[in-house]
């Protein structure tokens, strides 16, 4: 199990790194498009469409990382007022629900992926390409989310004295050591 979690941990970070690269590519390519247009060159064909797919991919790629670092937005109004034992129980329930959602979405999204691959479905916009080039993103992200939630759940069960993580403990996007 620990090997699976270690591999998944790498995957979480690789996907997050890809999300960063996609955002960086957006900055460079859209700026280049504007500057080239101002200089009288033609627009880059398919750039808008590619940017849209990049935003979609970046959103899903970073989701497992946000679960790992407890940065998904959540309301901890009630859980913060519970005694530690009850809070841990609630946190376990939360992780089980996240696993259930991830499992269902992975299965349904994989069915869509297999179908679009089998039928050779194409996306027709500015760019023409097989639908499955987009369809693998959701199943992979939710599969990684499932394993990440399982890892957190097992860690919580194995350390019964540890306090349940609360979103109010940190600032989204900024680590405590990064404060001025």
């Amino acid at each position, binding site marked *: 199990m620990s090997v699976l979690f270690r591999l998944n941990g790498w995957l979480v970070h690789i996907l997050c790194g890809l*999300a*960063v690269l996609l*955002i*960086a590519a*957006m*900055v*460079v390519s*859209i*700026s280049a*498009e*504007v500057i080239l247009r*101002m200089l009288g060159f033609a627009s880059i064909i398919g750039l*808008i469409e590619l*940017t*849209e*797919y990049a*935003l*979609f991919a*970046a*959103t*899903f790629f*970073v*989701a497992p*990382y*946000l679960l790992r670092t407890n*940065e*998904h*937005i*959540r*309301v*901890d*109004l*009630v*859980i913060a007022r519970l005694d530690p034992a009850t809070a841990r129980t*609630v*946190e376990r329930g*939360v992780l089980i*629900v*996240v696993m259930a*959602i991830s499992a*269902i*979405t992975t299965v*349904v*999204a994989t*069915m*869509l992926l297999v179908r679009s691959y089998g039928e050779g479905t194409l996306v027709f916009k500015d760019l023409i390409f097989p639908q499955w080039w*987009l369809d693998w*993103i*959701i199943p992979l992200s939710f599969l990684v989310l499932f394993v990440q939630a399982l890892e957190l759940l097992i860690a919580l069960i194995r350390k019964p004295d540890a306090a349940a993580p609360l*979103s*109010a*403990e940190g*600032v*989204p*996007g*900024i680590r*405590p050591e*990064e*404060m*001025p």
Partner: protein
Amino acid sequence: MSWVSILAIMFSAKVLLLLAALPVAFVFFLINIGGSYLIFGGLPGLEQMVRNEQVSVAQFSLVPIPLFVLMGEVLFHTGLAMKSVDAVDAVIKRVPGRLAVVTLVAGTIFSAISGSTIATTAMLGSLLLPQMLARGYEPRTAMGPTLAIGGVDILIPPSGLAVLLGSLGGISITGLLVGGIVPGLILAALFIGYVVLRCWINPELAPVSDDEGVKLDRPWLNFVVTVAPLILIFAVVVISMTEGWATPTESSALGALGTIILAGCYRALTLKNLWKSFLGTVSISGSLLFIIVGATTFAQLLSFSGATAGLVALIEEAQLTPNVVMIGMLAVLIFLGFFIDQTSIMMITLPFYMPLLKAMGVDLVWFGILYLLCMQIGLLTPPFGLLLFVLKGVAPPHIGIGMIYRAAIPYVWLTIAMMVLIFLFPQIVTSFVPD
């Protein structure tokens, strides 16, 4: 099942799951799975849900959200934001509540180049709050301005939430971004006036220290050198939109690239802090966009079940005057802001609000600014005021969340006063919006 029952079930399930601390995006996903299966019809319904998730965030109009956040993150992680705070600190002297005023002025300048409300509050809170507390400022006087000015960030472009509202509501994004500038500046001036007046009446709230701030040889020259380039980037972003040279998305990319180049020119850019800026960007914008992924199907379920049309028809049949309907809408937004995050509020209310507003012939940019002010109040009100948590994260451990709640109250009232002003005098917004 009637639309009333579906509406009641979906909303009560949402509230219960939110209170159980399930992440907001997953609250939507869970309700969507049940709703899609029952309302859209079994497995095809679930497949439709997954297809919706794919297209929900694949929108060019949403791209400015991460790019505006990136501008703020670069300023924060490269230390340029701290330099600009020092520059403001060095030129503001002999004002009652000096450091609180510095917070508000620096926050307003920072708002003009940061699309990250969180970065603004975190930066000012971690930098100036300890100084104010150490110099004997009454804690609420020290914390209030930090919280309040973070909210102003929503109004002054670049603003991620304004982009989101424009994109989801079909309102001109350029109109919202430009229309927010004057109200944002008036609100900042109101906050400064309030702080100065309170500290002038009761000097014990902010004791005058022997140390009158950062000492620089030529403070005004340093102010110009540090702050002018930031204002220039703000001007590039706004003028490129208003003059029609670039779309809001393109302006955001230019702004982000300009901020990175500026950090390079100041020799403040390293690979490490650039990486941190991008990581912060994907974290903040990812958590926001993932909620949109879930909320899109939620809004479709409401529409498909007849709840959206039913509720809109109910309000139309009541034959209320447009002003009463709008005041009711704004009151609902403020109420929801107590319990739900800003993205979810937009996803839930806009399907109901937009048809009604269009039917009433309301100026959408004007209402959009009022809408954003309600979102700002939501950031400052317990229990789900995100900025309250951000400040708790950076405040010294002895500062309790209850004290932070109380610090925000006067600024919530001032924001409501600003809303009344805009409601009575729409020209505050409409006069400055380009055709």
